[in-house]
């Protein structure tokens, strides 16, 4: 068993990773609650934005902040476009069908990215944010500003989204739609507009998460696209409903994942953390299942 000092640096990196998982998770939950779509292309649009930013900044020499805004804008635009085209077409279908349809978008984006930014060349791309260089130390632990931003973004977005859903008119409309889309429409809520807002919000979060993950993990289409599988774990623990639970689960998963690194016997298995925790949580939570036939499933 390694000493406590060995764990310390991993607390910081674990919290940062958890923060980004939380960021992704909150985006996924908001969209799912408003539209019933589990957006599996979350990682892919983020990766697309990050790769475009990389091209702009390193090849075209565009100033950094323009690149980052482009990343967020691209992710938002692609997500909104998909939502406007396929959202209404699939609105009455089973949540499973809606989720599988976003796999279609994932594959398209992944193919395009692999075509335009070939990975087989072996040249590793990297996207460094200026916040990597600065930082401070707590005790002996080096903390970069990017890590602070990752955790901070997770915290701020969770709190902000929670307040938004609770106190604003648009947020209330989203919560109403999560309960019943048809009745909400009857009450005079512009359902399509609210859905479009949710799509855009989710896309913007995907862009931010993509940018942070490209810096913290790797700028690689495959990794970033399928990293959504790991961040799904936190969403699943929250059963696609609670933002607070998503946040806590994400932080827990991120921490546990990184804290396993110094333990040599478990280090190789640490990537299992999100999957195992999600599986256990789902099984425990589903002990008492009632067979229901909701309108969505019919």
């Amino acid at each position, binding site marked *: 068993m390694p000493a406590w000092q060995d764990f310390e640096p991993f607390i910081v990196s674990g919290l940062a990773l958890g923060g980004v998982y939380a960021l992704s998770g909150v985006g996924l939950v908001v969209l799912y609650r408003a539209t019933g779509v589990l957006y599996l292309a979350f990682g892919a649009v983020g990766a697309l934005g990050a790769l475009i930013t990389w091209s702009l900044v390193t090849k075209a020499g565009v100033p950094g902040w323009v690149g980052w805004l482009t990343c967020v804008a691209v992710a938002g635009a692609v997500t909104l476009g998909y939502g406007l085209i396929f959202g209404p077409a699939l609105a009455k279908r089973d949540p499973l069908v809606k989720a599988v349809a976003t*796999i*279609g978008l994932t594959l398209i984006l992944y193919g395009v990215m692999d075509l335009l930014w070939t990975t087989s060349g072996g040249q590793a791309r990297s996207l460094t944010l200026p916040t990597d260089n600065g930082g401070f130390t707590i005790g002996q632990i080096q903390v970069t500003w990017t890590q602070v931003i990752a955790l901070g973004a997770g915290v701020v977005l969770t709190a902000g989204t929670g307040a938004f859903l609770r106190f604003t008119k648009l947020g209330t409309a989203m919560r109403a739609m999560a309960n019943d889309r048809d009745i909400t429409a009857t009450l005079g809520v512009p359902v399509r507009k609210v859905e479009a807002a949710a799509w855009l919000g989710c896309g913007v979060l995907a862009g931010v998460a993509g940018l942070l993950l490209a810096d913290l993990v790797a700028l690689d289409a495959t990794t970033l696209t399928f990293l959504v*599988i790991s961040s799904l774990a936190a969403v699943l623990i929250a059963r696609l409903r609670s933002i607070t639970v998503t946040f806590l689960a994400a932080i827990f998963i991120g921490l546990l994942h990184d804290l396993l690194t110094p333990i040599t016997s478990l280090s190789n298995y640490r990537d299992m953390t999100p999957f195992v925790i999600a599986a256990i949580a789902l099984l425990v939570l589903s002990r008492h299942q009632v067979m229901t036939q909701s309108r969505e499933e019919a």
Partner: protein
Amino acid sequence: MRATIERASPARTVRRPTRPQLVNWGVTAALLLFVLLALPQLMSLYYVDTMTQVAVYSMVTVALGLLVGRVGLVSLGQVAVLAIGAWVAARLLFATTQPYPLVLLEAGLITMLAGLLIGLPALRLRGLYLALITLMLAGAITVVLATVNFPNGGHGFTGYNGSLVHIPPIRRPSIAASDPAYFRYSVVVAILMFALVLVHIKTRPGRAWAAIRQSEPAALAAGINVWLYKLWAFALASFITGVAGGVLAGAVHYLYSIGFPTQDSITLLAVTLMGGVYSLWGAVVAALLYQFLPALLNNWGVSADWLIILFGVGVLQVLTTAPAGLADQVPKDLARLGRFLRGRLRPRPAAPESTK
């Protein structure tokens, strides 16, 4: 209540096959004979290997198609199940001198046990949650396999020895050592697995699955043991995928955990949906899409990424407009095209009722 299902079956009364049925069987038999006898002679070794993969993956897609199309269970972890089958078969082939069919059977059964272990708790969930938990478990299995590694002739339980210099290839059956012979061997195994699925669909489990897919509460009310039949479907799919893994082990000779990434399960679901989940032909179409088209494009020097994009478009198209996939859509479109062409080529009939 059980008797109701039994009585509804037409199996008791022997019916004379109809003409379309006979034509259908005839075409299928001719096609199978062509594939078994002539195809390996006509193709280069590159395409023989590719078609062996098609045979292997047609088993995987038929199992997934059974789950998705017949029972309504979406699994996003079939590549992990395939990897388990391949691992078990490779371990047995290195450790024992058992005949190959026996190894395939054992690989299938052990994979089935693993599938049952996963399925027992997972099947309490349904719909989206079931799909996601299979994805989570597949992710976990992939991580374990990456650490344990595939057997390479070493000793111990894992059969992996990282310091081996001369890694022995995974053996093939003595009657099918060459590539064309092994292709025929895999096709025969695939035919047996398709037959196994067909038998299930045409008999009692198939009818129970159809009822479950329509409505679980209704099936429950009709006295169908929903839990048992779902588990049965899961076990059958795992068995078939495990056997496919065994065939894959011999086909490629060397297995690496990097060959079974979690995301391939997602692509596999995409092609299975594109091929069509309501017919067995759909599984063959899906396997051709998944293995043959990439090889073809590779030969032409076209990037396989175009294919990924095509799969993505295909999934969206299947889900929005053509739920039965290519296996259903293409014959219909061809028939429509045929009618259209006939209408163009023939002189327009002068019958007055056609212009009303």
